């Protein structure tokens, strides 16, 4: 381990970015724990997937770039992958939760606005 070649100002930037990412992850997890209903709770982990993830990734990118002496862009791969996949997962989970809330007869969910069209009316 020879990290002594990382300059001090880069270490301070890495430390601030990594601590900010971890603090945002803790904030999102506390929000997940403390918010009262599911439809409020699903907002809380979004901050982990966006700002917390990007802060940690940029800190890791700076660390490995200055440690190996060249530009290493591996961590951006994870950040881009997370940025693509987490909205897909959240939309699926949100639709499932809405469906289950409607099935169980909760009153505080919006009604289903899609309706079945008659067979002849679709082409007109």
């Amino acid at each position, binding site marked *: *381990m020879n*990290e*002594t070649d*990382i300059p*001090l100002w880069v*270490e*301070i930037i*890495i*430390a*601030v970015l*990594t*601590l900010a*990412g*971890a*603090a945002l*992850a*803790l904030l*999102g*997890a*506390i929000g*997940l*724990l403390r918010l009262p209903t*599911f439809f409020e*709770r*699903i907002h*809380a*982990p979004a901050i*982990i*997937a966006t700002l*917390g*993830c990007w802060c*940690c*990734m940029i*800190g*890791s990118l700076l*660390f*490995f770039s200055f*440690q190996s002496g060249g530009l290493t862009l*591996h*961590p951006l*791969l*994870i950040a881009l*992958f*997370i940025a693509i*996949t*987490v909205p*897909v*997962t*959240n939309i*699926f*989970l949100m*639709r*499932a*939760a809405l*469906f*289950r809330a409607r099935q169980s007869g909760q009153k505080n969910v919006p009604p289903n606005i899609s309706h079945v069209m008659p067979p002849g009316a679709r082409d007109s």
Partner: protein
Amino acid sequence: MNPVLLWALPLALFMLVLAMLCTLVRLLKGPTAQDRVLALDCMYLNGMLLMLVLGQIYGSGHYFEAALLIALFGFASSTAMAKFLLRGEVIE
């Protein structure tokens, strides 16, 4: 290692472990099934960040691959479980 990173990285590790404990509590007591799936979704994100911070502590690039695998399998499993909640079966 300079003292800045020597103090900051274990502190970040501690905060991430605390975040995983919060999601674990939600996973265990979540009233409905979708709460548990959401907690698992949040937990794999935290575990991935944990792997990245561990890789910085040990100065090794192998932890990056573990983080990438956690991201891949976490996406697949969360989507499969959300689909299961929606339809009752994963592949129809």
